[in-house]
């Protein structure tokens, strides 16, 4: 068994209005950050997972992300794996 550090990044779908992202963007501009656009606020879920291979780990994570960690109506996700 290998062990992986898993990062699941969940973000609002591109066509979904993200008021939190807009508020953060306005604040960044207020604070002097120039040329900023398209700010989105999502969430990062990290955990350790034991699996036989990176591919097996990725498949299991994709399954749980689709079913639970992200709501496909409003969110999309991406997965990062790091072997420990």
């Amino acid at each position, binding site marked *: 068994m290998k062990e992986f550090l898993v990062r699941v990044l969940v973000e609002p779908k591109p066509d979904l*209005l993200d008021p939190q992202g807009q508020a953060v963007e306005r604040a960044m501009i207020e604070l002097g950050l120039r040329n900023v656009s398209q700010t989105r606020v999502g969430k990062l879920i990290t955990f350790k997972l034991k699996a036989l291979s990176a591919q097996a780990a990725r498949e299991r994570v994709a399954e749980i992300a689709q079913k*639970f960690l992200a709501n496909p109506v409003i969110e999309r996700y991406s997965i990062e794996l790091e072997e420990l």
Partner: protein
Amino acid sequence: MRAAVVVFPGSNCDHDTYYVLNDLLGIETDLVWYRQTDVDRYDLIVLPGGFAYGDYLRAGAIARFAPVVQALGEYIAKQRGIVLGICNGFQILTEAGLLPGALTKNISQRFICKTVQLRVENNATPLTHLFEYGQIINLPIAHGEGRYIAPAETLERLKRNRQILLTYHGENPNGSVDAIAAIMDETGTVFGMMPHPERNSERLFGSGDGLKIFQALIRELASSEPSNLRTF
């Protein structure tokens, strides 16, 4: 007739809903713990408002896997009775895929707690048949994640089947698409609404419009065998 009000860890409108059904309307009502799976004895099952599992991850995201919600899938499939999700209950039903769409953060990013005006968009349903078509009613809302979102094809289907029951009138408080506040599923046995009818079921707390929602469901159940619900 027997009703159930489901209690999740974090429900907080369960006792108000129980009071309206049991004390005001005289329906034999049980508070049903979320671990229970035997729900077939109930003609009406209400998922009440609150913050099940602290709204962690997304409102309703964890509660949808609770044993009682899993049992609801079968209950609905066999058209055993009526299921009503109020506020957090609505969020749980959408997360479970038992109602279409999703509820996400209010556009204002604020928790909104106030009485709003609602327009009755379809009064030929078990939930709304005591109202007139187009009637404006008053009910309180109290939510941070009440902005209803659905893909374009889902919205079209909702409109075509007249599954949109209530819309916000005047102001759209949370930014819901088409100002949607309450919907039902295609079978007409599963209902979801963000406003709280249990909080306006007595004159002391306003117009009493909320009581009519519960009365409508109970009259519907009393007048038709559960197997006939499909006609809606």
